[in-house]
């Protein structure tokens, strides 16, 4: 799924529409699987094999395995699903936010969320 510049009606705001849902189905289904303890264990034991169970493309696999949140979202991953990866491999949601915004974590907390850090 290619994201063309200017595709989003609201800048930098990907709405989870038909195109993204279709494109991201494999990634999201894989992530949804992590709501079961046995799948969390399988992911921890052998991530690559777990991802293959859901037929992820090499591009999707690469995005997941490098924890490239921006790329996962670009490929149609929806944060409510892919956030479950952080249950297996902990990362704060603000770090996921900062990554997508292309900002250092402290800058993100200060400039986007108005926190004093």
């Amino acid at each position: 799924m290619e994201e063309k510049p200017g595709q989003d009606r609201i800048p930098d705001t990907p709405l989870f529409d038909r195109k993204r849902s279709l494109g991201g189905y494999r990634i999201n289904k894989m992530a949804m699987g992590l709501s079961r303890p046995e799948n969390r264990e399988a992911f921890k034991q052998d991530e690559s094999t777990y991802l293959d169970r859901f037929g992820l493309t090499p591009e999707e696999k690469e995005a997941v395995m490098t924890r490239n949140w921006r790329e996962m979202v670009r490929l149609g991953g929806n944060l409510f699903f892919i956030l479950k990866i952080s249950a297996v491999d902990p990362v704060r949601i603000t770090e996921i936010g900062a990554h997508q915004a292309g900002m250092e974590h402290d800058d993100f907390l200060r400039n986007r969320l108005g926190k004093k850090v």
Partner: protein
Amino acid sequence: MAQLIGGLGTSHVPSIGAAIDKGLRDTPDWKPFFDGYIPGQDWVKAHKPDVAVVIFNDHGNSFFLDKVPTFAVGCAEEYHPVDEGWGPRAIPPFKGAVDFSWHFIDTLIENRFDPMICQEIEVDHGIQVPMELFWDRPAEWPVRVVPIFVNVIQYPIPLPSRCYEMGRVLRQAIESYPTDERFVVLGTGGLSHQLQGARAGFVNPQADQAFLNDIATDPDKLAGMSREQYVEMFGSEGAELMMWLVMRGAMDRDVVVRHKHYFVPASMTGAGMIVMENKATASPAVAA
């Protein structure tokens, strides 16, 4: 007949539940947030509702993308916490108001709303957190629940005006229900936040504060806004704020605001709370 005694609004950020679980309630980061809910909890204690109708969205926990109901209504005996990835949270299951749920579903259909009917379903932080914020963490919930799930994730999501209209049908269902039970309606979600895309971390305190005013005084304006306007003003995930309109639609045009609270950021979200009563039937003001 049953009666509507109040309309409550609140955010349902998962980090709030996690903060309670980790015992962080009184830390500097969280204390001002939680303290703001004390008047809301006191209101609930004083008014003792029997049934809470809670409007929220599932966050990819009870529903996957294979089946996405625009509106779903629970009519289960019990609703257990769902495993969101960290194991189900250790909170008591919610008891359902089964008979009213079916009556509500009947009333919806008769009014041309066609919801999914859920006799067995687990529930996520979308309902857990609001219940904990208003009822604290009892050993057993002193109130039965009617969950209304709204799809605000997979586009096309419903129109804000449709949420508002559903609220009117909910009111009709409550007032045609032949018991003397006392109902509260909880609109949940928001306020401004965005979790996805390069605009992640967007919050809009000014718009949030305006929303907390408008929901009481000018709900028609909020119901008339487009989905895009919600996204633009409150962020891609903040658009879920339109679910408060179901609650507001169940109330009279004229309401009294009993309590209001705003705090930013709770995790990545502008968090808000409101307690309203219909002006016509408002209880005498409770001394603060």
